[in-house]
């Protein structure tokens, strides 16, 4: 396993389900502190790529290295998460039967071992962090509301809050603005940029305007491998990309 300065390093990753290649010899580099947008048509392998990075899916071949030392292909979700990789799902998943505050508490970096949790009480600075995050995502009033009661948008926010609480080195965000109004989209872009100040971020998105709003380096996936990389303008100038999106 080669050591590298990159935060996330994929090389020659291949995943196939019953013959169909979801990822085909994919290679990708994310530098520390970078924000990267990954675009591509359906079935391009975006979600599978995230599954591989977060340990949900084991690649058939290829290297996945985090932080220049950890070989992610050997670890499971829990390890990877504790290493500092957070993931936000396309469909917001919060704990419906827990209050907003408890959701954040569960996400809060730190205690994970069951036997420690049995007797643990929230400490002073844990509570401090919670109130802090609540204010960031502007949900102080709803903090004792059950997750199930929240609106779609609120859930999106709560989940972002949970990611902040988890405080990962690298953040994987799957189609954050799916089904959002333009206003919400804009604010989300702001929040992501905000987060990017302290975390590296990988955003998977369809919505071009949103990607443009982010204004970051773009990677285009197609049929499980990288098609093009560069600024949005560069890639959208690329002939093959146009073909892929518009068809012949």
């Amino acid at each position, binding site marked *: 396993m080669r050591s590298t300065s990159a935060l996330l390093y994929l090389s020659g990753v291949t995943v196939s389900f019953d013959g169909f290649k979801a990822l085909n010899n994919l290679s990708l580099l994310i530098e520390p502190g970078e924000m990267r947008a990954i675009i591509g048509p359906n079935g391009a392998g975006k979600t599978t790529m995230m599954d591989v990075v977060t340990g949900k899916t084991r690649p058939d071949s290829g290297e996945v290295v985090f932080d220049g030392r950890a070989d992610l292909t050997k670890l499971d979700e829990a390890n990877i*998460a504790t290493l500092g990789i957070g993931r936000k799902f396309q469909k917001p998943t919060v*704990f419906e039967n827990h209050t907003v505050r408890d959701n954040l508490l*569960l996400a809060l970096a730190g205690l994970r071992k*069951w036997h420690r*949790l*049995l007797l643990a009480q929230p400490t002073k600075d844990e509570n401090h962090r919670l109130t802090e995050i609540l204010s960031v995502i502007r949900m102080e009033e709803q903090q004792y509301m059950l997750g199930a009661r929240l609106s779609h948008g609120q859930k999106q926010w709560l989940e972002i809050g949970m990611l902040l609480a988890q405080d990962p080195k690298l953040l994987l965000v799957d189609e954050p603005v799916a089904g959002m109004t333009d206003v919400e989209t804009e604010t989300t872009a702001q929040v992501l940029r905000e987060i990017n100040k302290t975390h590296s971020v990988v955003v998977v998105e369809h919505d071009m305007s949103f990607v443009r709003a982010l204004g970051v380096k773009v990677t285009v996936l197609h049929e499980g491998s990288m098609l093009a990389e560069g600024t949005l303008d560069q890639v959208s100038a690329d002939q093959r990309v146009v073909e892929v999106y518009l068809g012949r």
Partner: protein
Amino acid sequence: MITRFLLQGMDRNLRLFVLLVLAIGIALPLLNQIMPPSSPFYVPAWLLQLIGKYLSFALLALAVDLVWGFCGILSLGHGAFFALGGYCMGMYLMRQIGSRGVYGNPLLPDFMVFLNYKELPWFWYGFDNFGFAMLMAILVPSLLAFALGWFAFRSRVTGVYLSIITQAMTFALMLAFFRNDMGLGGNNGMTDFKEILGFSVQADSTRAVLCFASAFTLALGLVVSAAIVGSRFGKALTAVRDAESRMRFLGYRVEGYKLFVFVFSAAMAGVAGALYVPQVGIINPSEFSPANSIEAVLWVAVGGRGTLIGPVIGAFIVNFGKTWLTGALPEFWLFALGALFIVVTLLLPKGVVGLWGQIKARSQAKKARAPA
């Protein structure tokens, strides 16, 4: 610290309920002991035994609910843990018979004598000691649960698959215990007990004590369960139930959580079994039958899964109904029981407790409307 831990999960309803359980556990035995049989308040011994039995069933139901209602593991094998606990108690009681068996053999239980056993099988040693037997009643089920859970949870066997293998486990155990070569009494199991800790199991006083013991243990079980559920561990547990993979991505080792509750609840079931045996006076392999485990699950469903009061109430309703109907309409009680299960799953997914909650909510809504 510990008291803080124990009290953190108790809300007002639960406190009342625990007190009620204790009250029953104290009042009934007392009434049986002090009241003269003529008095209308006299509690006959058979009723005492019945309540004792229900109480140990309630404890079993609570154990099932802990894994199912709070962690989403539907175990169809808790009857096995219950029965194992029962067998440990049974072996102790068997040893207490001593030379009062029909053959008057000081060492060997009767069934061994007429199967020509020459000496006591190795695994029978130590069971003449109450402490040891009780320890085993907790350890044996826990170890079995640990072994099963360790593999199952690590290889992420979930949902129906888990239910099926737990069922396979109890089924296999039933077949095993049916074999006379097991040296545990085969189909007849163990019965005709004489003494527990030197007191005759047939004495009303002993029954009174056993009934109280069951109530007390149930109360304790409720408190501890409440503490676990109320702790941050409990929050994580229900989170695992609702969105397991999400918890993984948050960095939780889900296996550990599942394993702990599973083992704990198995131990609880074992204790329930140990309390059950001296009160019904027999333990035999049919306790392992998959039907029993499924029934225990149904008690929980009837009472209300995911609550601590629910399983206790469910166990009482169903078993009281059974006792009553098998006498009142012996030909038709199965219709009633079956119908109950269907109706509850269809109409009361939250069980009786849930219904109670809905009614209360509605009445409050009325009150709210009234002044306007």
